[in-house]
């Protein structure tokens, strides 16, 4: 059981036993009642969208865009094909919640997508699953077969006249496909290169047809919203931050894993749930919303509550809810070097500032880390990030720049020390001990 703890859980409620992911188990937990109710009671599309709006469910993939609003952008009366697409291409360092949702509760995603398809008049959907989690992809295919056999997918669902077919599509190793238009390109059988927007997917999406893309957790929350009612769901979290959310905690904590908590829960509570910092050491910094979100130093982090607004006030983003915890043994230059390498490696290569800039950033940070930094390197880094940010086709340019800017801002002295002394403030032995590789047991 990898959802390690929860406060007032919904998604992770009663996910016990090896068969929790099976259709029968899901139905026992109240699964597919939301879809059944909508179709059998002949609810309207407006009703569904309104409930989602009332819930103030915000996109769980990272951008936090209100889901109900996004759904209302779809041209529902458009006569041709329309698509709903689930983004399970979870590759943002620190994020691993969708994997567990698909592993333990795949039918919630299927039901959520079917409801979304109904609300937007779509008849076909795809779930794009990260290529590296192959067992999850195979399980989802099985779950789809179960749903088809039970009449929750296919033509004329539950005799309502509504058709919805859903398929799984796997990635094969490209972080950028988590960007929604790159994901669409990828489903179309091309390189995952983001499209320039406008036009937005709601008017020109998959195969040029109106398309709505949501994160796995977003879709999985839909059945709960319909069952509970939008307002009740909102109340489970806090104002403007509806519901509960899964947080993935990784790094220097005793019990890394997924935790479902109401939005607005204090960070300190979450850290406690994860067993606190390893070896009783001190928290140094935290990346609260996946690797693309700016790093937050310990003090500021300890004052945050885990919701979109509080984290934003602390100068970062809740993002995907991936909390990377770093203790005092962490070399911030090395940490940034690894992240910068990641963004350089994963840049799709399409637009100039990102293609050229991410590599430049990495090479300068790498120089600093390997003792070849120059006095003006920090200014250079800052200038290069300014030249990338806001000038690229997609958000990867910004995602690569924000860690650089925030690491240097909050740990300027550590970077300056590296440049001046050609080594780290944190002694190498301390860094080595920090990983716990040679002392840990399974």
């Amino acid at each position, binding site marked *: 059981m990898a959802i390690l703890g929860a406060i007032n859980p919904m998604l992770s409620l009663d996910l016990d036993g090896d068969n929790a992911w099976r259709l029968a188990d899901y139905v026992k937990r109240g699964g597919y009642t939301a879809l059944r109710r909508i179709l059998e009671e002949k609810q309207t599309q407006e009703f569904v969208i309104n409930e989602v709006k009332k819930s103030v469910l915000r996109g769980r993939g990272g951008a936090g865009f209100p889901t109900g609003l996004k759904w209302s952008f779809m041209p529902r009366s458009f006569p041709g094909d329309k698509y709903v697409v689930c983004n399970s291409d979870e590759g943002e360092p620190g994020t691993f919640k969708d994997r567990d949702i698909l592993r333990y509760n795949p039918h919630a995603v299927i039901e959520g997508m079917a409801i979304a398809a109904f609300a937007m008049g779509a008849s076909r959907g795809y779930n794009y699953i990260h290529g590296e989690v192959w067992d999850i992809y195979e399980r989802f295919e099985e779950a789809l077969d179960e749903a088809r056999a039970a009449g929750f997918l296919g033509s004329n669902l539950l005799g309502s006249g509504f058709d919805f077919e859903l398929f799984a599509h796997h990635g094969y190793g490209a972080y950028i496909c988590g960007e929604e238009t790159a994901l669409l390109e990828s489903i179309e059988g091309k*390189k995952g290169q983001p499209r320039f927007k406008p036009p937005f997917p709601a008017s020109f999406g998959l195969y040029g047809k109106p398309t709505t893309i949501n994160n796995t957790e977003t879709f999985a929350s839909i059945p709960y919203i319909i069952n509970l009612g939008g307002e009740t769901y909102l109340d489970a979290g806090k104002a403007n931050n509806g519901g509960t959310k899964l947080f993935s905690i990784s790094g220097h904590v005793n019990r890394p894993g997924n935790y479902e908590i109401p939005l607005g829960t204090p960070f300190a509570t979450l850290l406690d749930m994860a067993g606190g910092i390893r070896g009783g050491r001190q928290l140094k910094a935290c990346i609260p919303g996946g690797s693309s979100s700016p790093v937050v130093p310990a003090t500021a982090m300890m004052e945050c509550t885990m919701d979109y607004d509080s984290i934003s006030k602390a100068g970062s983003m809740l993002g995907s809810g991936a909390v990377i915890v770093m203790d005092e043994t962490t070399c911030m230059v090395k940490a940034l070097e690894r992240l910068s390498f990641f963004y*350089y490696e994963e*840049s799709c*290569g399409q637009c100039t500032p990102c293609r050229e800039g991410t590599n430049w950033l990495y090479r300068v940070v790498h120089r600093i880390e390997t003792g070849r930094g120059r006095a003006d390197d920090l200014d250079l880094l800052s200038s290069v990030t300014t030249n990338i940010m806001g000038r690229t086709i997609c958000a990867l340019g910004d995602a690569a720049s924000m860690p650089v800017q925030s690491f240097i801002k909050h740990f300027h002295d550590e970077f300056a020390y590296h440049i001046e002394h050609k080594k780290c403030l944190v002694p190498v032995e301390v860094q080595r001990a920090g990983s716990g590789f040679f002392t840990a047991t399974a």
Partner: protein
Amino acid sequence: MEIEIDGKIAQVPDGSTIMDAAQQVGAYIPHFCYHKKLSIAANCRMCLVQVEKAPKPLPACATPVTNGMKVFTHSELAVTAQKGVMEFLLINHPLDCPICDQGGECQLQDLAVGYGGSASRFQEGKRVVFHKDVGPLISMQEMARCIHCTRCVRFGQEIAGVMELGMANRNMHAEIMTFVGRSIDSELSGNMIDLCPVGALTSKPFRYSARSWELARRKSVSPHDSIGANLTVQIKNNAVMRVLPRENEEVNECWISDKERFSYEALNSPARLKRPMIRVDGTLREVEWNVALDYVTHALKDITGSHGGESLASLASPHATLEELYLLQKLTRGLGSGSIDFRPRRRDFSADGKLGGTPWLGLRLSEIKDLDAALVVGSFLRKDHPLFAQRLRQLGKKWGKVSLLSVSGDDPLINLHAQLTVSPAELPSALAKIVKAAAQLKSETVAQGLESVAPCSTSRAIAASLVEGEKGAIFLGNVAEQHPQAAQLHALASELSRLTGASCGFIGEAANSVGGHVAKATPTALNAHEMFAQPRRAYLLHGIEPELDCHDPQQALAALKQAALVVMLTPFADGACAEYADVLLPIAPYTETSGTFVNCEGRVQSFNGVVRPLGEARPGWKVLRVLGSLLAVPGFEYDSSEQVRDEVLPAGEDFVAGLGNEVTSVPCVSWSLISVPGGLQRVAEVPIYSADLLARRAAALQKTHDALPPSARICSETLQALALSDGASVRVRQGNGEVVLTAKADPTVPAGCVRVAAAHVSTAALGEMFGAINVERA
């Protein structure tokens, strides 16, 4: 929509981008990836501009205009963004401008002056990108220069219709390449050199031969196919160094085919004839012009004097200028012969004298984009007419239903509505099926002779597209014109046109396929076929190589060899002419003479010579004028080619008058339409780089895949029936001639047919382009 750009107001249609609007008000926005003919990529980011109320700079090429939008292209925000992008573009770009072929005409170099820094802040090692060999035309030797704008990739996908280049890998290691070591074979590939904003894709034949600023630019017109592409010819030291497209949206847009771009190599080839030659004691010897002219004058006078005017026949190339064609026919007629023609590849002349006007395309090239349906009959479309095919390709991508009825299943790279591939002998009956289907759809009486024709589903689909479309067109291609039942095909197409309301016309084989009619270079006695079938005593040949350019080279060669006098006006001294020519007079190719081409839509395009004639070569019209004077033919007192032209055409007209494709008293059907002969039939294309004298001698073009020596292409079922296998050496026979070729299995060839290219030295010993052919194991 109203938009303000740098304080200037522009009214633009809904759906316009900021870039469109900026071009309208004359505001220049720097860019690399944007190209008006290609899809929007928005990847270079050079065109970032400031838009009021937008927090970030936006790419002008991709941002749609909204009403009341205010744009600043040179504000601090915009310029900072543009300079930032320029820095990124330059960090990995080599500093090799001094040895780069693009130097002086490089968009990156030009814009770096305005937006680049004087020193680089990038102190890491630069990216290394391996060179690629992609064939004889395009050099990809210095791919580190590539800025990943993907114009070349998009050109392939969108204009050429074939994706040969792609951008492999990702991040800064993304690189433009073909699929593992393949060559670029598109007949439009050279345009990618023009599109490349840097020196990554360069012209292989041109490389390192001149700097762009040393070149003078001259306007010209393509002498090759019937489109009449507008050219810019670049010269240095009185030699043509390079040929580029000259934009004319109504004709060639901004493209030219590789044939037009690279054929210039022939102009400087050692095969050029520089002095007149006369056969003395069996061999051709160089002589002075006056000696040669004296010889020709006396010889022609002698022969026509003692054997009558009709003992002389004249045959010109359809690539000759209007002026040359006019003077040649005037000279020939002046000597008492009506045997003059300019259609050496035609076989069926039964429509001659029954035409209502000058045969032409039937509509303007610029109207193609507005068609709802088009049917091409008998054409190797891509290779015969690369730019015409390109226009149909764009049409097929939109709403237009493009269909192809021809004798090979070659992929035209067009999104086709329907394709019908039949043997040459079945071509008339296949077209008749479409006519019949159209008549049925329109509930009209079926033309006489078509009662027993039974339409198939494909012919019905083609007919339906023409009947349903508001604006349709039927185009007869080279195969239809060269076909032994060309008049039948013409009559059937006319009937289809009458039934459906579609226009009907000829794509035309060459630069002056329309102009030759205007110049009256058509026979009043023997036509291009008859003049060899009934051998003459004297021949005047203008700009052609009969063994390659005639419908039946065997017959032509036999006639020439028996003639008492063969006078060739030609720019080249090589080839088979030594076997039959008695006099070679060196004439100037299109770059060395003034003249006029009338393209397929009847457009009159005059041009000047761009360099002096090579050696003692002289413009063809001058040679003919002198001959006319020496032979005392009246009316040869011309001072300029313009005077000649003005005698043919009313001055100042953009299009010739009297265009029309009506054909009268050719019945739709004859017995041969219904009966298809047994035995193997020949399918003969004119390979793209064998089609004219220049292309045949262009060194780089001759190294392309399209210039590979012909083989005997046969579909596998026919191969099997002949007990032959793919790759076998076979003896191919027609009439008295035979050649040995390699058999190749080719599913695009109709059953019962053997595809053997014409116009090639290795098949010149064979006979007619159509009809019976024999194949056996060699």
